């Protein structure tokens, strides 16, 4: 074991740091997906497209800023602005025009509708941003690298991945937990998620809350994409791989879990990243292996609550 660690320690260290950064991005997409499922009871396959559009939009805004001679530090707020724009424009549009119309339909139809939306949004991305890789590394280059000591070695790692991404994810986690528990809007969202009819009877405009939550969920997906955009180039299909990973996180954590989603995202992010460095051919399999193993032991997910039904 010690010999293995001394041989692979550096790689493992890189994998851990990479995995945490990747977990931070997946967490935001997964928690948004969870929120949306909670209020709408629709598994939104197109959620990954919002991640991709958030990433592309962030890249476009940064390109606009740099090509117009504006200060480069603006590329940081641009990440958040991109997410807000995508959420505010696409969120209400998708919810009102499409999902609201199918919210009382069979789950199969709902799934087909969101899949169709995913296909449409994939084509929209290709129409706007083309099929060539798009990069947005300005924020990462601006912050440079930091030498992280790992045993006898030192790993140079980007400050963006080390601090900015996990920092924002942590802020999102704590902020969201606080928002849901301590604010009236948060409690109202929880009420609608728990029991829509009971919430309506208490005077809650469930339709308005659903749209608001969907918009917020869309924003989180777009923020996940925007924050991930400086780390890797965007190519067509990035939305598909993201949504599948997010499903794995949500299923592992259990539906409706915010803190649980964070832990599951770290498990899956680390698992995937360690596989990339140590056994690359397992990269694709590991997240789903973790999910399957968890679901075999706890079908409701690690932190999910079993629903009891009176008969």
């Amino acid at each position, binding site marked *: 074991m010690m010999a293995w660690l001394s041989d692979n320690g550096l790689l493992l260290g890189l994998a851990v740091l990479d995995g945490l950064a990747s977990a931070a991005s997946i967490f935001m997409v997964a928690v948004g997906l969870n929120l949306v499922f909670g209020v709408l009871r629709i598994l939104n396959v197109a959620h990954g497209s919002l991640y991709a559009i958030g990433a592309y939009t962030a890249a476009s805004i940064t390109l606009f800023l740099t090509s117009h001679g504006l200060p480069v530090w603006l590329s940081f707020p641009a990440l958040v602005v991109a997410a807000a724009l995508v959420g505010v424009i696409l969120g209400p549009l998708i919810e009102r025009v499409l999902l609201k119309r199918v919210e009382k339909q069979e789950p199969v139809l709902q799934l087909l509708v969101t899949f169709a939306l995913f296909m449409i949004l994939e084509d929209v991305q290709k129409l706007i941003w083309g099929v060539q890789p798009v990069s947005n590394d300005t924020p990462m280059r601006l912050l440079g690298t930091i030498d992280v000591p790992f045993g006898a070695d030192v790993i140079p790692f980007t400050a963006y991945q080390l601090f900015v991404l996990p920092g924002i994810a942590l802020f999102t986690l704590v902020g969201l937990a606080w928002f849901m528990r301590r604010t*009236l809007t948060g*409690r*109202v969202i*929880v*009420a609608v998620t*728990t*029991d829509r*009819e*009971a*919430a*309506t*009877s*208490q*005077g*809650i*405009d*469930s*339709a308005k809350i659903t749209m608001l939550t969907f918009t917020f969920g869309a924003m989180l997906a777009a923020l996940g994409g925007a924050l991930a955009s400086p780390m890797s180039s965007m190519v067509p299909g990035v939305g598909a791989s993201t949504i599948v990973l997010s499903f794995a996180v949500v299923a592992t954590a259990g539906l409706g879990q915010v803190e649980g989603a964070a832990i599951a995202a770290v498990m899956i992010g680390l698992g995937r990243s360690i596989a990339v460095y140590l056994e690359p051919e397992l990269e694709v399999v590991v997240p789903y292996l973790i999910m399957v193993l968890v679901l075999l032991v706890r079908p409701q997910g690690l932190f999910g609550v079993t629903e009891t039904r*009176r008969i």
Partner: protein
Amino acid sequence: MLRLEKVSVDIAGAPVLRGVDLVVPPGARVALIGRNGAGKTTTLRTLMGLLPARGGISIDGQPCTDAPAHRRAALGIGYAPEERRLFGSFTVLENLRLPAEVLKLPEAELKRRLEMVFGLLPELREFGPRKAAGLSGGQGKMVALGRALMVGTRAVLLDEPFQGLAPALALRYAEALGRLRALLPDVALLITESSPDLLRGLVEQTFVIERGEIQPAAA
């Protein structure tokens, strides 16, 4: 005054209410008695705007057949469903406060109503910090009644409140409803039950519903 005029409701294509006429005057204590599946719960859910209905529904003369369901609380209608439907992850106090907070009642008014509810159902003060998910069925019914009273300034609709209550709790619940008459004389009560015996002494008017129709002779 709650008024249903020739109200019909279909659920999954099957008629559940057929031309129901029902009037609940201000301060009246009215029972709606019927067997399982007769349409009692559907009548209350229709009054709450939770089901699409044909016919006329009005609250204090204000037509609201097509008004959004969430507006009922603002119109002063409180509703305690048969299965309580509390928010399990909230404390009892949060459950009680929620409808009043949603209506943006001033804190002083909210506290006044809370004290009124605690006066009527003293055990709720003790339950306050507990999670609603941890309550027994009977305790949950008490909380559901308290929650309905937080916004029910005109009428409170109680769906089979005695269903599944232990005898001691049923007695306390009935006592609370009895005290309600003195405490809130202008608030109408519409209570559904499968047996009229449970409501003896609590209501002054009883309607019987059968296969979605109010029986004329029993009114």
